[in-house]
């Protein structure tokens, strides 16, 4: 061993008075932390292997376990924090790029938590969602900007292909490969039951899930994994992935060890070959090229399916969005810098991109200014954590939101952020069949349905409180928001006044 | 419909239950020679041990007879059967008519002619409750007990009384204990275990003659005793049947449905000799589970249903001073002795089927899985044979078989 530079970040506290040595912690830890010591008749743990995923804690029948942050410290240093020092130790040892999973944990401002929602008092009374008509249904797609009439003078009400959402929340892209078959099954089942959509991510669509096609958005990413005509026609919409919030500017990477039979067949790549998606689409180098791809996809699906273009939120996002709105795409999906990922270089995940709140506000503003807001619907993602985040996002201009991390948490994820190890103890971010088994889609889909049903109810309560009874009336309604603890520039970008004003 | 059963033990009770599942109206009368409510004979040694009492030994509750509308003639002996008139003569006096008759007369202890037995004041057999109670009254702390017969009955008796008397010695002509049930290796294990507990064995020997308190063995050894128990074997009670002209061998001959030559007379239990599954030949399989299943089958046929019990095999489950033994089937074909940490396991395979097993100690865990394999004639190439030898696990069966066994309606 020599020199141990990295002290285990967690300690496992076992209450020996409560422990019945049932060994479930030993059986269920994929990192082999716990073991039963025959001699002493007691359970023991090796904290150096613990990733703080809480599998053992959650299963312990007598609640004898807890995981705490170690109180082993470096000398106090506001600049040279522990993780900064340890990152240098790691790179001095490995010589490699630091990999990280899930969204950035760094302490950047969370704008959702700095905005407050209005409520009706005295004038414009609140609406009681249990007693009066209120709907959270919404439609995504091109909206016409003027009223047209037919030969008989009747208003033409049909619009080009729309996605109908019973709630303004969809499951964001997570590829089959980064997450497990059972996780995909849970998302597909839940989306069907809820009347919303889930996204295949760049891993293609497994043949077993074609049955959920009408609740599926199929993604075409830079690696074009799994893209073939049936795939394109199987879903309800097609999403071109230009970028991802967690790692703007680079592509995806699934190591060959995770490419088993199933994934190889679904992605249409050789067994155990590394699946590396290039950074750009090598056939898109300008906005005209994007337009060409959008229409190629529409041709391939006979103009029956809306096309979504997903971009990461970066500095000049408004200009980019403006270009996309003119390219023929029906929906723009913007992914903020806090979005999750199966694996990405830590430095890119933590330092590249901008918050979705600011990106959303500026894109919505810009599109309105240019008079093209109706060309596209806006869907945003990148750390939507609760129903209040959803309400604020819609008020800032979104038509709907994408959730991914929240969905995984509902499935059991404890945000231990070690997805890249393929040892996800909850059966979510792994391809190991022994671990994938742990996520029973019957249980998982039930939890997802419960989560979104609860959020839907809360959204209705908040909308009712504002005196609003439809998503369309909330969308872009900046007057319903006030900032708190925000300075002038932030307020200006968000387009909202400060609380009290 | 009048249903009559001669014999008030396991086979008759099973017969009652089977008849009542089909015919709730016909009358049922049970004739029992012993003046006790139906009890389980194998429990008499436990009675002596103190592990049960007369009340708990009852095989069914009083409510059972009420609910099933059964008349029990306790302490009554059937003396003859008139097949033409379809009547049974009771105690030589009254007659009882029947439409369907079950002979479940069980067996009686066989007492060999021993020179000087007449002089012995206190000798017993060990099959009925009355004999057990009689023996119990004679047990004293200083008693020296000599048991003739190291078979199931002899050893259970020994177990029942060992800690209540001074000494227990067991004599048997056979060179090993439980000769008809175990193989050499397991028999030795059992003998060693029992010797450790304090039993004394004189095997390959027999009583040449005895006096009031001493037995002279063939080998020349003299054993002093206060109480003598004779447990060399039993004979099926076939007298009634043979006198009535029914076909008998060692037992009353029956087919799979418990039918004798007479369409209205059936036989089941220890008195009967029916088809044994593995050999296909008829045999007396005097074992409680078989008695039940035979009685049940006969009952169904008596009530007008068509039933056959085609899975009769020899089977024994007993514990002797903490050592458990389970044996099933026949010991023929290919033998597999599987090393066990704590016990003994031997499986017999013939024609791709499991036909027999001997399980001692820890090896008896979940033995029913082996029993089912034997009874159901499971093809051994359809499962993981090495695994099932190691341990009786449902895991050894193919996945789709497991689904059926565990996943479907029962």
């Amino acid at each position, binding site marked *: 061993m020599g020199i141990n530079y990295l002290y285990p970040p967690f300690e496992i506290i076992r209450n020996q*008075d*409560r*422990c*019945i040595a*049932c*060994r*479930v912690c030993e*059986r269920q830890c994929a990192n082999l932390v716990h073991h039963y010591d025959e001699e002493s008749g007691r359970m023991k743990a090796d904290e150096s292997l613990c990733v703080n995923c809480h599998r053992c804690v*959650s*299963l312990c*029948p*007598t609640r004898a376990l807890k995981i705490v942050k170690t109180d082993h410290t470096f000398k106090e240093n506001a600049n040279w924090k522990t993780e900064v020092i340890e990152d240098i130790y790691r790179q001095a040892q490995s010589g490699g790029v630091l990999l990280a999973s899930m969204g950035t944990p760094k302490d950047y401002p969370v704008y959702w938590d700095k905005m407050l929602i209005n409520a009706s008092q005295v004038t414009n009374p609140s609406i009681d969602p249990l007693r009066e008509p209120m709907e959270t249904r919404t439609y995504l797609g091109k909206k016409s900007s003027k009223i047209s009439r037919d030969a008989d003078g009747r208003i033409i009400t049909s619009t080009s292909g729309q996605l109908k959402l019973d709630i303004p929340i969809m499951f964001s892209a997570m590829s089959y490969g980064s997450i497990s078959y059972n996780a995909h099954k849970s998302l597909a089942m839940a989306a069907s039951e809820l009347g919303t959509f889930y996204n295949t991510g760049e891993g293609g669509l497994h043949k077993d899930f074609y049955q959920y096609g009408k609740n599926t958005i199929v993604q075409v990413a830079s690696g074009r994994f799994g893209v073939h005509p049936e795939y394109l026609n199987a879903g309800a919409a097609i999403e071109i992935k230009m970028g991802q919030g967690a790692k703007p500017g680079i592509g995806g990477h699934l190591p060959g060890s995770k490419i088993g039979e199933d994934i190889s067949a679904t992605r249409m790549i050789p067994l155990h070959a590394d699946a590396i998606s290039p950074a750009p689409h090598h056939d898109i180098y300008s906005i005209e090229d994007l337009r060409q791809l959008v229409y190629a996809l529409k041709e391939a699906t006979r103009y029956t399916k809306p096309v979504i273009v997903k971009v990461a939120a970066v500095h000049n996002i408004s200009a980019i969005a403006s270009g996309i709105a003119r390219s023929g795409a029906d929906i723009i999906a913007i992914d903020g810098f806090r979005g999750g990922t199966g694996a990405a270089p830590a430095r890119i995940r933590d330092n590249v991109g901008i918050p979705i709140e600011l990106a959303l506000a500026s894109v919505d503003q810009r599109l309105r200014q240019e008079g093209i807001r109706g060309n596209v619907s806006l869907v945003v993602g990148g750390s939507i954590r609760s129903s209040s985040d959803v309400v604020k996002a819609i008020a800032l201009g979104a038509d709907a939101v994408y959730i991914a991390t929240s969905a995984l948490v509902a499935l059991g994820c404890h945000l231990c952020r070690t997805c890249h190890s393929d040892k996800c103890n909850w059966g979510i971010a792994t391809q190991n*069949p*022994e671990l994938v*088994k*742990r996520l*029973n889609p*019957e*249980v998982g889909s039930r939890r997802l349905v419960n989560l979104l049903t609860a959020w839907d109810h809360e959204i209705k309560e908040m909308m009712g409180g504002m005196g609003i009874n439809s998503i369309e009336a909330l969308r872009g309604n900046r007057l319903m928001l006030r900032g708190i603890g925000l300075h002038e520039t932030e307020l200006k970008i968000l387009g909202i006044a400060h609380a009290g004003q | 419909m009048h249903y009559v059963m001669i014999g008030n033990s396991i086979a008759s009770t*099973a017969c009652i239950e089977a008849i009542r599942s089909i015919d709730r109206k016909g009358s049922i009368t049970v004739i029992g020679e012993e003046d006790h409510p139906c009890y*389980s004979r194998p*429990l008499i040694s*436990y009675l002596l041990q103190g*592990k*049960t009492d007369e009340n*708990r*030994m*009852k*095989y069914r509750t009083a409510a059972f007879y009420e609910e099933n509308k059964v008349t029990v003639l306790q302490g009554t002996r059937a003396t003859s059967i008139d097949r033409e008139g379809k009547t049974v003569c009771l105690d030589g006096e009254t007659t009882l008519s029947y439409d369907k008759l079950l002979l479940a007369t069980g067996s009686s202890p066989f007492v060999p002619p021993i020179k000087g037995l007449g002089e012995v004041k206190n000798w017993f057999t060990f099959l009925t409750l009355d004999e057990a109670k009689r023996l119990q009254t004679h047990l004293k702390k200083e008693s020296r007990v000599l048991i003739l017969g190291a078979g199931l009955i002899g050893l259970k008796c020994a177990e029942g009384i060992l800690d209540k008397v001074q000494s227990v010695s067991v004599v048997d002509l056979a060179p090993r204990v439980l000769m008809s049930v175990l193989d050499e290796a397991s028999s030795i294990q059992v003998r060693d275990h029992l010797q450790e507990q304090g039993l004394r064995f004189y095997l390959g020997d027999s009583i040449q003659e005895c006096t009031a308190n001493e037995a002279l063995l063939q080998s020349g050894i003299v054993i002093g005793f206060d109480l003598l128990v004779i447990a060399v074997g039993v004979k099926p009670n076939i007298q009634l049947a043979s006198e009535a002209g029914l076909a008998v061998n060692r037992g009353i001959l029956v087919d799979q449905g418990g039918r004798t030559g007479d369409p209205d007379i059936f036989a089941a239990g220890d008195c009967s000799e029916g088809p044994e599954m593995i050999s296909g030949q008829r045999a007396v399989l005097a074992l*409680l*589970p078989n008695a*039940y*299943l035979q009685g*049940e089958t006969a009952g169904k046929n008596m009530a007008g249903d068509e039933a056959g019990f085609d899975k009769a095999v020899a*089977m*024994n*489950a*007993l*514990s002797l001073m903490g050592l458990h033994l*389970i044996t*099933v089937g026949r010991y023929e074909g290919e033998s597999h002795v599987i090393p066990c940490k704590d016990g003994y396991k031997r499986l017999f395979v013939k024609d791709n089927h499991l036909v027999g097993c001997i399980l001692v100690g820890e090896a*008896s*865990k*979940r*033995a*029913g*899985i082996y*029993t*089912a394999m034997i009874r159901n004639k499971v093809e051994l190439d359809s499962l993981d044979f090495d*695994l099932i030898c190691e341990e009786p*696990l*449902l*895991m050894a069966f193919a*996945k789709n078989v497991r689904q059926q*066994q*565990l*996943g*479907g*309606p*029962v």
Partner: protein
Amino acid sequence: MKRIYVNEMWCLGCHLCEYYCAYANSGVQDMVKALKDKQIKSRITVEQRGTISFAVNCRHCTEPLCVKSCIGGAITSKDGVIVIDQSRCVLCYSCIMACPYGALMPAVEGVMQKCELCTTNSQGQPACIQGCPNKAIVFEER
């Protein structure tokens, strides 16, 4: 009649069903007190080899061989649930010899025990169902 069914597809071999079963039948309210430093004899048995695992318990057969083989008549069927009158059991092992699922075994107290669908303890619902973390065990009619 509702019975316990185990789906081997979702069984993780975590053995929690065994511990919850032992706890439910211990007669002790506090789980730690019931199970800590005690010999555990569960009425549901997990079979585990390699990557396959599933739990086996009494099927409550409509033609119960254990009932027919018990030398003392201690095992009976109460509305379809097969139960043992433990005061009458003499541990002869006849039921173990008979049960094709290996669902009976000696209890810690030295008489036979088997799954009784938690009808004879204070649980109400079978404890193994509640303890299973992956819905591998269900309680339903089939």
